[in-house]
C-alpha cells in the first residue's frame, strides 16, 4: 500500500462518517421536537455535510482521474462506504439522536485535535475548521444528556436505553487496520490508542454526572472499515443516491 492509497482511504473514512451522520441528522429537518431544536440539528447536519465535502474533495484530488466529491458521494455502492456503524444508526427517538451525537462528537473532538498536529497540511486545515464546529456539537449533546438524565423518569429511562443500545457500536471507533497503521507511522493519522484513553474516562464521567449507568463493554459490532454495514445503510443510500442513479446526467 502506498502512502497515497492509504491517505485516499483515510479521507474516505473521515468523509463517510461526516456524510452519513450528517444525512441522518438531515432526516430530522422539519421533524425536530420543537422549532429551535430542529434548527440546531439541521445546523449540525450542515456542518457535517460541509466537512464531508472537504474530505471528499481531498480524496478526489488524491485519486486524480477526474473524480469529484459528488461522484464519491453518489456513485459508490454500500460495500465501498466506510463510515463507522454508529453513524448510520437510525433516529429511533430523540434520546438516540443525542446519545449517538455524544458518543461520536466526543470521539471526533479528540480525533480532530490530534489531526491538527498531523504532518499532512490539508488534513490539518480541515481539522482546524471542523474542530470548532465539533466542540459545539459536543456541548449541545452533553447539555442534553444532563437534561435528559436529570429530567423526568421517562427521559432518564429512554436515554439509558439509547446509551445501552448504541454502546456496542463504540468499540469500532478505535479499530486500527493497515491504513491507520501506515498513516500513523507516517505521522499523518490520529493515534486511536491515545484517543481511546481520553474518550473513555470523559464519557464515563459525563454519564456518571448525568446519573446514568455505564453500559457494559461486551459484544462490539464491527465492519465499517471494510464496508460491511448494518441493515440501515442500504436504505439511506437508496434514498440519497436515487436521483443520480436514475438520472445520471441530471444537473441542478
Amino acid at each position, binding site marked *: 500500500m502506498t502512502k497515497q492509497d492509504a491517505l485516499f482511504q483515510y479521507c474516505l473514512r473521515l468523509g463517510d462518517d461526516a456524510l452519513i451522520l450528517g444525512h441522518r441528522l438531515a432526516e430530522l429537518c422539519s421533524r425536530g421536537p420543537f422549532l*429551535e431544536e430542529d434548527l440546531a440539528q439541521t*445546523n449540525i447536519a450542515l456542518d457535517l455535510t460541509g466537512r464531508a465535502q472537504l474530505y471528499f474533495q481531498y480524496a478526489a484530488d488524491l485519486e486524480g482521474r477526474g473524480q469529484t466529491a459528488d461522484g464519491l458521494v453518489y456513485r459508490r455502492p454500500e460495500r465501498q462506504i466506510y463510515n463507522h456503524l454508529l453513524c448510520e444508526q437510525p433516529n429511533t427517538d430523540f434520546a438516540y439522536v443525542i446519545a449517538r451525537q455524544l458518543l461520536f462528537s466526543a470521539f471526533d473532538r479528540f480525533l480532530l485535535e490530534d489531526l491538527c498536529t498531523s504532518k499532512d497540511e490539508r488534513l490539518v486545515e480541515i481539522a482546524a475548521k471542523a474542530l470548532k464546529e465539533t466542540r459545539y456539537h459536543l456541548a449541545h449533546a452533553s*447539555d442534553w444528556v444532563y437534561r435528559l438524565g436529570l429530567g423526568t423518569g421517562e427521559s432518564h429511562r429512554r436515554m439509558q436505553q439509547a446509551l445501552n443500545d448504541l454502546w456496542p457500536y463504540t468499540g469500532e471507533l478505535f479499530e486500527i487496520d493497515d491504513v491507520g497503521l501506515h498513516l500513523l507511522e507516517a505521522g499523518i493519522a490520529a493515534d486511536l490508542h491515545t484517543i481511546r484513553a481520553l474518550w473513555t474516562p470523559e464519557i464515563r464521567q459525563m454519564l456518571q454526572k448525568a446519573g446514568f449507568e455505564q453500559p457494559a463493554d461486551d459484544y462490539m459490532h464491527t465492519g465499517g472499515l471494510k464496508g460491511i454495514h448494518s441493515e440501515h445503510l442500504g436504505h439511506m443510500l437508496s434514498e440519497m443516491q436515487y436521483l443520480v442513479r436514475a438520472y445520471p446526467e441530471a444537473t441542478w
Partner: protein
Amino acid sequence: MDTQLALWEVFVQSKPGQPYKHAGSVHASDKQMALQNARDVYTRRGEASGLWVVRAADIAASDLADSDMFFEPANDKIYRHPTFYEIPAGAKNI
C-alpha cells in the same frame, strides 16, 4: 394548554463594541439551551459577535395604556433634542 418551553428574548451584538439589539425570541428550558437556540436561530449565517438571552418573564415593559403619560411630554420640547451642534466629522456610532 401551552406545552412550549419558557420564552426568552434574544439580543444580538453584530460587532465588538456595538450595542446589543433585540433580534427575536426562542423557547428554552434553561440558560444554556436559550443561548444555543439563539445561536442556531439568529446567528447561523455568522452575523454576530455576542449574544444575550433574557427570560421574557423577567423583562419589565411599559404598558401601552401609559404611552401618553410616558412619552408624550417629551415630544413638544425641542430644547430637549440635541440638534443644535454639529457632529464632528469622523465621529462614528452617534
